């Protein structure tokens, strides 16, 4: 037998198909098709977890997606451990391992339950009040303890080894929910020939038909009809039926995210199967048939294991053949619980009493109860329960007071009515409307091409739901251009349920201090909500955040309406005036795996590699990430650390020469008769007079006058410029140029083309640079007379075309060899073959940084930060004085940008030449002033310079250029560094070496 509580002949599972699983180390037997919850209940296990805050013992509340309590860890192996899985959704498979959460050391004996005794300090808002001061204690003491003791589940210790799939799907009609309404709509839409997707979160279609025992549709039992209809639909070419598939998010323009659980229910999934499949659906029409969710009753100690929704008990009985107890009590404000009681009684389960807080239950119920021999107490309420790890009794009192009766029960089922599932409608930006007659929020006008049908639309009667769904299915198809086709479906036997209540029940009212839970997952009681109102929270959004009601992973599917009603009562206002909080995606939790999907590793963050990358790797380069680029950082030789390697590289470049991979520089080809005029507008410099074959350093501003980018620009021909940008700046500079060209200066005849990856660039820098490249270059006179500093030539190198620039970012004479990227590696090999015998080295970005800092060359984004003008950076010389216009010209005229007291870029020399400042460190005039000190600037670049034999730094300092030679201080946590303001040029101050 697969559990003592399985009733022979009840449910739809096959007794012969047994599977074994473990829960907290115990081995249990289940039936194929069981959920973890039904399997545990079959085995008499009601204690399934501990609550989040008070660590109270909890059992299962529901039987579906709304479950707040029974959250488990499901483990396949070390890398596949999923926390917070709802036991009501997880199907059991052979060999499954489940563990309970929120308990230490064991579920039955939990140390954290002392929180229950300390509950006065854990009242609503305790996070905000109790632990606010002192701040340090929050970080070091309170938070780690709270997080450790609370927390939901344990994250897996290693990377996820599963894979996930992602698909796009387009359809005429997407139907969410496969109950009687969804199936009817799908049948009707499919008949017109429209392309239809029907999805349901359950393992099989049918929705409430899986447990509504009295319903028949088209002459057969409701569930059989649903199974047939699903099979019929799945066989059609124009229909895709997706089970175990949750529509979790409804976004703009009928874009709906579905996640399909492909293998979570399989014992031994094939390795090529994705664990989950993300469907990104764009539907022309959406039909929501998402049903409704039953609410619990809010009364004292309503959270003991064994107390659950009446619909859940009915599902466990009619779908899984499991009796949730042997002596069942019923507490209800609604007719639906009667049907559960009747089904249980007919299956042989003892129903101790139906306690109905109403005086007048729905028609016929009392007589049926009498026929079945069930005692009904109308006008009574359950005011308390007893039981340690499972409910053992319910205490009943006549409304208005009187003697209390105790009923021994081992399960208590309850219903406060049904809440339409308007989540997806609300996510579609639809506004819900309060229906006073039935006391519930219903979908209002649809802002998208969408319709709600059936229970989620407040349509209660079976045939009305079917008719509404058929009409919506046909209308959706017609709106997609299909011809209408008629569909007729007839349903009967559904109860016409009345009643329902929202808020706290008798014995849990405003004058009481009992624990009557509203939100089980976040341990929020009716008292907490009243406290929030007393503390001044008058908006439901504030109440929600103060109490955390509805903020757990179940998003308050069972608790929102109760919380709202209690707040409304405390505020003495009507429910619609207090308002409903907004529903947000996801409807139920979605794994990171599904969302991230293929976007992991290199597909999440692609690595960009230059044509020389392999060579650099072979020659021992250490790489650094610069944006997505992998750049050679330094090339340590045997026995060298970074410092030693960089010192050697820096010395070698200035003594002989060095090769550097400059391929990552952004490059833009600016071409057209108006190219020079365009650059005149984009850069501060003047370009019209630049002769073909010459280069110029350009500064680009934003309209506000601040430096946006810089780089060397070569004029290749009258109508052609080779523009370089910073490594990280290439895309935004091109975007910026395109913007002006397309929208502000469209009269200019210019074309812009990104050529960053078309050119491989080898910088050869140092006194021997010319000697190195000369044997390889054809057709270019390399003499300084013919090709001086800042010139550019086209010719050939190693037999391939080149744009050869004589430029320098080191202060040494040097070249940048641009060759088509595919020729890069061969040319590099040839250049290196020349360079190595001459004592040259290959150097990385760190040496490049040091060498440029020795010369005071700035790096935009390091020495500037978006608030630095050319004047601030000491680059005022690069602004053409006679141009009538360029981007940033007016910004530079702003009073604040021309005023004294701006931070200016200067050099800093530490008094102790061996001390290297930290980049970002602050500069003050008087280190002995009280904290907070007046900060005058900060260090932007700082290095050890082997060539200067001392540390060097650049900094932005208030009025820095007027403070040459003055002493300032850089306070550090444990000492203060004395510095002197200097020029930014530390090496070769006359700048003669570039001409060598």
């Amino acid at each position, binding site marked *: 037998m697969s559990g003592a509580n399985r009733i022979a002949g009840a449910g739809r599972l096959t007794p012969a198909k047994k599977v074994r699983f473990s829960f907290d180390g115990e081995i249990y037997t289940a039936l194929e098709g069981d959920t973890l919850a039904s399997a545990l209940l079959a085995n008499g296990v009601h204690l399934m977890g501990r609550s989040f805050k008070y660590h109270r013992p909890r059992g299962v509340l529901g039987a579906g997606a709304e479950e707040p309590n029974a959250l488990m860890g499901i483990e396949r192996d070390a890398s596949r451990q999923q926390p917070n899985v709802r036991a009501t959704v997880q199907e059991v498979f052979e060999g499954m391992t489940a563990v309970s959460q929120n308990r230490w050391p064991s579920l039955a004996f939990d140390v954290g339950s002392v929180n229950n005794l300390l509950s006065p300090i854990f009242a609503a808002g305790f996070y905000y009040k109790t632990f606010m001061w002192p701040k340090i204690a929050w970080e070091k003491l309170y938070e780690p303890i709270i997080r450790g003791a609370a927390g939901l589940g344990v994250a897996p210790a290693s990377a996820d080894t599963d894979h996930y799939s992602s698909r796009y799907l387009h359809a005429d009609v997407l139907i969410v929910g496969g109950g009687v309404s969804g199936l009817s709509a799908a049948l009707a839409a499919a008949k017109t020939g429209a392309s239809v997707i029907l999805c349901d979160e359950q393992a099989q279609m049918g929705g409430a038909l899986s447990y509504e025992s009295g319903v028949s549709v088209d002459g057969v039992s409701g569930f059989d009809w649903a199974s047939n209809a699903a099979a019929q639909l799945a066989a059609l070419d124009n229909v895709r039926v997706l089970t175990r598939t949750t529509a979790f998010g409804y976004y703009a323009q009928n874009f709906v995210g579905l996640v399909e659980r492909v293998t979570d229910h399989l014992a031994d999934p094939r390795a090529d199967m994705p664990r989950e499949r993300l469907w990104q659906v764009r539907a022309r029409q959406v039909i929501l048939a998402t049903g409704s969710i039953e609410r619990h009753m809010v009364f004292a100690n309503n959270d003991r294991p064994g107390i659950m929704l009446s619909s859940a008990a009915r599902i466990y009985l009619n779908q899984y053949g499991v009796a949730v107890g042997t002596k069942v009590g019923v507490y209800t404000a609604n007719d639906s619980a009667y049907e559960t009681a009747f089904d249980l009684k007919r299956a042989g389960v003892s129903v101790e009493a139906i306690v109905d807080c109403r005086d007048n239950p729905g028609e016929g119920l009392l007589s049926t109860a009498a026929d079945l021999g069930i005692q009904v107490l109308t006008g009574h309420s359950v005011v308390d329960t007893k039981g340690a790890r499972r409910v053992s009794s319910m205490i009943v009192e006549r409304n208005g007071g009187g003697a209390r009766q105790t009923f021994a029960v081992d399960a208590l089922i309850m219903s406060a009515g049904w809440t339409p599932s308007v989540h997806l409608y609300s996510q579609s930006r639809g506004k819900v409307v309060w229906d006073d007659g039935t006391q519930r929020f219903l979908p209002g006008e649809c802002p998208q091409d969408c319709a709600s049908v059936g229970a989620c639309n407040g349509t209660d009667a079976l045939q009305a739901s079917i008719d509404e769904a058929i009409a919506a299915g046909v209308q959706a198809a017609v709106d997609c251009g299909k011809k209408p086709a008629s569909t007729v479906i007839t349903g009967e036997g559904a109860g016409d349920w009345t009643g329902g209540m929202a808020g706290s029940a008798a014995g849990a009212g405003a004058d009481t201090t009992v624990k009557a839970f509203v939100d089980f997952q976040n341990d929020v009681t009716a008292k907490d909500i009243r406290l929030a109102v007393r503390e001044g929270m008058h908006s439901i959004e504030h109440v929600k955040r103060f109490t955390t009601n509805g903020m757990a992973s179940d998003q308050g599917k069972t608790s929102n309406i109760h919380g709202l009603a209690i707040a409304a009562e405390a505020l003495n206002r009507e429910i619609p005036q207090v308002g409903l909080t907004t529903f947000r995606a996801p409807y139920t939790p979605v794994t990171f795996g599904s969302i991230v999907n293929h976007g992991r590793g290199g597909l999440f963050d692609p690595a960009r590699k230059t044509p020389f990358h392999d060579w650099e790797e072979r020659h021992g380069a250490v790489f650094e990430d610069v944006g997505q680029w992998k750049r050679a950082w330094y090339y340590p030789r045997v026995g060298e650390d970074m410092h030693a390697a960089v010192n050697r590289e820096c010395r070698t470049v200035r003594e002989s020469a060095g090769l550097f991979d400059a391929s990552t520089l952004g490059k833009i080809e600016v071409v057209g008769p108006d190219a020079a005029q365009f650059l005149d507008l984009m850069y501060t410099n003047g370009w019209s007079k630049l002769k073909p074959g010459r280069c110029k350093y350009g500064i680009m501003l934003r309209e506000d006058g601040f430096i946006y980018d810089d780089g060397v620009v070569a004029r290749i021909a009258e109508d052609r410029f080779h523009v370089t940008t910073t490594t990280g700046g290439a895309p935004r500079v091109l975007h910026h140029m395109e*913007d002006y060209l397309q929208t502000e200066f469209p009269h200019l005849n210019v074309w812009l083309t990104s050529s960053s990856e078309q050119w491989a660039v080898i910088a050869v820098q140092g006194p021997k640079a010319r000697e190195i490249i000369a044997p390889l270059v054809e057709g270019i006179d390399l003499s300084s007379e013919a090709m001086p500093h800042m010139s550019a030539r086209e010719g050939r190198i190693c037999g391939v075309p080149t744009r050869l620039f004589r430029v320098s970012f080191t202060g040494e004479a040097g070249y940048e060899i641009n060759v088509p990227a595919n020729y890069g590696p061969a040319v590099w090999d040839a250049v290196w073959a020349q360079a190595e015998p001459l004592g040259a080295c290959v150097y990385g970005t760190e040496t490049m940084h040091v060498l440029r800092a020795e010369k005071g060359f700035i790096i935009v984004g390091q020495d500037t930060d978006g608030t630095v003008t050319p004047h601030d950076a000491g680059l005022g010389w690069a602004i053409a004085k006679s141009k009538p216009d360029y981007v940033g010209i007016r910004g530079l005229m702003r009073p604040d940008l021309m005023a004294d007291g701006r931070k200016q870029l200067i050099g800093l020399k530490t008094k102790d030449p061996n001390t290297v400042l930290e980049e970002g460190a602050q500069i003050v005039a008087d280190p002995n002033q009280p904290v907070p000190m007046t900060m005058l600037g900060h260090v932007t670049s700082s290095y050890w310079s082997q060539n200067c034999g001392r540390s060097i730094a650049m900094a932005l300092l208030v009025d820095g250029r007027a403070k040459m030679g003055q002493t300032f201080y850089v306070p550090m946590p444990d000492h203060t560094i004395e510095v002197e303001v200097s020029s930014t040029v530390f090496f070769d101050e006359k700048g003669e070496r570039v001409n060598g």
Partner: protein
Amino acid sequence: MLLIHCPYCNEERPELEFRHAGEAHIARPTNITAISDEEFTQFFFLRDNPKGIAFERWRHMHGCGRFFNAVRDTVTDKFVTTYEAGQPRPDLPAGGENEKGAGK
């Protein structure tokens, strides 16, 4: 994910291909060096950010590369229309405009 109609490609394409580019119909003054600080502030710093109908620029970054204008309702996220850069503001259906923003 929004679908956006590129008026140059004349196709509806996914949002991922596009990049938002700020408020539309703010022309750079041709006499920019002559404008006052107040005018510069209006031109460069101040934006309407209306609730409701907004005129904005988009670029079909990973498509044709063109900048174009769009009318979008910032409450519903719905695009009313898109049109080529340089075109005047389109006439909108009555009642489709909010008080601020659109009339300027």
